[in-house]
């Protein structure tokens, strides 16, 4: 058990890096995902095709491959950015696909009748979207978005493969020095569990508060 005491600062630092990766990635993935869903729902065929192509290509590549392409590809074109940023960009690009599909189905879940009622009142298209479509679809998206957030936290472990010392990377280094794999990786698992349970619980609280009774 001395591993915990000896490497306390490193382990906490690793966890902090994981939290930073996730907290920066989630909003980026959300914004990019919403933009993609706008493309995929837009009446212009070309823009719709762009949205669909993005989702189909990026979603069907392993995240690790995507991150590797960014890490090794960007320097090729003369762009050197920190590894941390590469991982954030890769995770954001990937999970934006999931956000996009979640937003799309959330918007589809809003009753057509209510949209018609809003139009019949004389609300302009943008006002219909703001007052009826968005508030209702966001409510139905709380849990799926939390699942995406959890997947981002877990997916950030791939940073370890690219030399970012987040939780998994730190634990791996500690294990190389101490040769206590079970204890080390169990510790990492516990760390992830604390983060993901927190997200799941928060989502539950939010959902209960904004639930729409039908």
């Amino acid at each position, binding site marked *: 058990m001395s591993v915990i005491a000896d490497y306390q600062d490193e382990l906490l630092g690793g966890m902090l890096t994981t939290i930073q990766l996730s907290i920066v990635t989630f909003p980026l993935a959300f914004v990019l995902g919403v933009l993609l869903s706008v493309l995929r729902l837009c009446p212009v065929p070309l823009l719709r095709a762009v949205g669909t192509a993005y989702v189909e290509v990026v979603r069907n590549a392993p995240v690790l491959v995507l991150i590797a392409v960014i890490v090794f590809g960007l320097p090729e074109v003369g762009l050197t950015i920190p590894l941390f940023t590469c991982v954030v960009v890769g995770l954001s690009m990937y999970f934006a696909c999931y956000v996009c599909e979640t937003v799309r189905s959330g918007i589809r879940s809003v009753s057509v009748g*209510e949209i*018609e009622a809003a*139009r*019949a*009142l004389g*609300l302009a298209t943008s006002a219909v979207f703001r007052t009826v479509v968005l508030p*209702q679809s966001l409510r139905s998206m709380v849990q799926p978005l939390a699942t995406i957030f959890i997947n981002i936290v877990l997916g950030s472990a791939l940073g370890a493969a690219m030399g970012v010392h987040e939780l998994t990377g730190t634990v791996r280094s500690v294990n190389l020095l101490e040769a206590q794999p079970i204890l080390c990786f169990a510790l990492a698992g516990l760390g992830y569990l604390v983060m993901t349970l927190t997200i799941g619980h928060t989502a539950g609280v939010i959902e209960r508060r904004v639930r*729409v*009774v039908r």
Partner: protein
Amino acid sequence: MTDRPPLVALDGVNKYFGSLHVLRDVTLSVGRGEVVVIIGPSGSGKSTLCRSINRLEPIDSGTIAVDGVPLPAEGRALAALRADVGMVFQSFNLFAHKTILDNVTLGPVKVRKLPRREAEQRARTLLDRVGIADQAGKMPAHLSGGQQQRAAIARALAMEPKVLLFDEPTSALDPEMINEVLDVMTSLARDGMTMIVVTHEMGFARRAADRVLFMDGGRVLEAGSPQEFFDNPQTDRARDFLSRVLHH
């Protein structure tokens, strides 16, 4: 009075759903304060006709004018026109995430730019008028169907519309709730509201209509006073329809 244009005027309106010709050369003029009830079998085009008047269904040819103004294409001008044309739907379509009071104030606040306080005052008066003042703070799902539909009527009235469209307002209701909605509609008719009502409620048509339209196959086959139509229908199709709906 006579020099003012009719409130709603349809002229030679045609509409297709794919190859299906759902409105065939429909011409109709509705005057101020008039209550027109449209009846007919399902699939006769009566709901489509009702929905075309505020362009929830765009038409393929012909013209529709409300208060002398031809229906604009999609955009700000159409939204402005819709604000003056109230609509009550078969499935109520109250906004599920808003209280009854907020459902009624949404239009006046967002479209008419009325101060919230004033809009709420007016909403409460209207909810009282339709008999559900005590439900103002509840969510739509907590109300009965009849109460929801009366709230929907209050929501439409809050815009002070020139004309109210009713698209089968009682078809989704349990029998015992139909009357509470029809009573509200009858009182509106009596107060001089211009109304176009698609319904299967023959009793309401007899009691409240100034004119009854009978539609079948996308055409208006008969138009006349309730007495003329119910006591002496002119077409076989109308006689057949009435014998089916009145004798059971």
